[in-house]
């Protein structure tokens, strides 16, 4: 199994379960299909809402794809078509993440999975021992607010997954210190970072996305690239997400230092954009500034032990 990063995929939660996207183009022409957010089903989860704003869109969390449905239905569907799948996993505690990943690993069609993306922007639940009828978990904040928690979460995922499986960590605009969080994620074993320019908006769990946030994404990509050049973060490939809505913005993200892009709200307006971007990015030669074009570099010898 190769750990080569796909040039373009859908952003988490913007590709449905894959079947919806199959109506608009040939999925096998893509480098990978993004399934997500994969999690434990929660019937009480509030409905997803989209609120259009000028040049943007405010969205609440996308509906969860229950891990059971992914294992029994979606992965076999993708595997039968020879598609490569990246599963984006969303979990509130380390235990829940371990549970989801173990279930995924036991799936017969896990061979179709070429990568796992861990969502560090997800809300973290603090757990404590049960005392009487008191609730045993509280929502504290996002994972990415606490680099130490990110390190634990990503390290757990790394431990449970095959060594050669691509592990991505997604962090975004909610992050108080992106460099520290990125360093923790890479230290925990992430082999690529997904940098999201989504800006917290309107209320808890809601984010502003769309062309309006493109400069936020570019700024984040540049900041992480500079930190890598200064040696504060090990060199790993970057994926830009947020504000990528046409070929020009995808190329701008490439110039800023991202190896590949994810498309979110751009797909909601025109799903065929995914195939057009795939075409554009495969014709552009790899950026010479990128030190490791094949994505095979082992950052800081972390796999050596």
């Amino acid at each position, binding site marked *: 199994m190769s750990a080569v990063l796909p040039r373009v995929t859908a952003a988490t939660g913007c590709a449905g379960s894959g079947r919806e996207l*199959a109506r608009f183009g040939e*999925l096998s022409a893509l480098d990978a299909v993004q399934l997500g957010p994969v999690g434990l089903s929660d019937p009480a989860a509030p409905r997803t809402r*989209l609120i*259009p704003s000028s040049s*943007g*869109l405010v969205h609440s969390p996308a509906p969860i794809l229950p891990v059971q449905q992914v294992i029994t239905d979606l992965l076999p569907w993708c595997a039968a078509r020879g598609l490569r799948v990246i599963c984006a996993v969303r979990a509130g505690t380390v235990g829940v993440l371990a549970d989801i990943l173990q279930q995924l690993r036991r799936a017969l069609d896990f061979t179709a999975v070429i990568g796992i993306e861990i969502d560090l922007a997800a809300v973290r639940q603090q757990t404590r021992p049960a005392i009487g009828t008191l609730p045993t978990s509280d929502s504290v904040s996002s994972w990415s607010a606490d680099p130490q928690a990110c390190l634990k979460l990503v390290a757990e995922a790394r431990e449970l997954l095959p060594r050669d499986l691509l592990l991505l960590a997604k962090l975004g605009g909610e992050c108080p210190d992106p460099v520290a969080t990125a360093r923790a994620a890479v230290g925990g074993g992430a082999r690529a970072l997904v940098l999201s320019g989504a800006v917290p908006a309107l209320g808890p769990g809601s984010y502003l996305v769309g*062309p309006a946030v493109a400069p936020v994404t570019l700024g984040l990509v540049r900041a992480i690239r500079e930190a890598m050049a200064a040696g504060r973060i090990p060199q790993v490939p970057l994926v830009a997400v947020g504000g990528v809505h046409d070929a020009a913005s995808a190329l701008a993200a490439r110039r800023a230092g991202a190896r590949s892009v994810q498309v979110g709200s751009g797909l909601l307006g025109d799903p065929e954009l995914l195939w057009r971007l795939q075409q554009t990015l495969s014709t552009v030669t790899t950026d010479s500034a990128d030190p490791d074009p094949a994505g095979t570099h082992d950052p800081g010898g972390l796999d050596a032990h």
Partner: protein
Amino acid sequence: MSAPSLRRRTGEVVANRPVGAYRQLSVVVPTLPGRARPGQFLLAASASPDEVLARTWWLSGEQTEPGFGSTLEVVVADDVLLPGPGEQLALTGPVGRGFGVPTSPVPAVVLTQGAAAGAARWLAERLQAAGCPVHLVSAASDPEEHLDLVRVRRVADGVLLTDREGLAASTRSLAQSVQPAVLYAVGPLWLSAQVAALAGELGVVSQVMTLELGAPGICGHGLCGACDLPLAADRAGSRVRPCLEGPVLRADLVAWEAC
């Protein structure tokens, strides 16, 4: 299912005329692979780069002439950004599953509200062609919102005008005289929920729209999940995605009280 079936195509707007409070657009596109049905919808590329989502419009008519192309009609809310005659428009569709027409001629009642009345009128024409006696109930607070009644009266056996509050009562009294076998709801979600309750009360079959087209925050491509509805009874706990599996569904499948 896995063969790509929806492609965005460019059509030419041939007419843009006012119909009451709405506007009716006619767009000529390359010949469609099959016949369109009432209840299907179109996705039109957003009018300005400021808008992220595509516009979703009810299809209110289709006519295919060999060698010329297909003419699609839509009735939409009045908007300054609508294209004029001669302009190009990028469209995806027709999308989704439309209304089914009964195989034997049985009395039918079509309930409608707003711009979806264009689709209701088309459905009434299809029902009449199948030999079904049709009654149309139109709910509106402003007389301008009752769409093109002359054309509807040509096909329907009866047209009943009412408002949102009086809808349930007038439909009940109409049902007593007409004894419908099927109710159709062509309109927003509140109308579908009311028709679901009425159909349960009268013990008849109903087909309803489960997607609020034209409302902001609907992607229409089946990708976002904002339109998901909870399923009822033995399917409780799972959800249906109207832009993929609908937009027309049997009303008793949806748990309306949980929406």
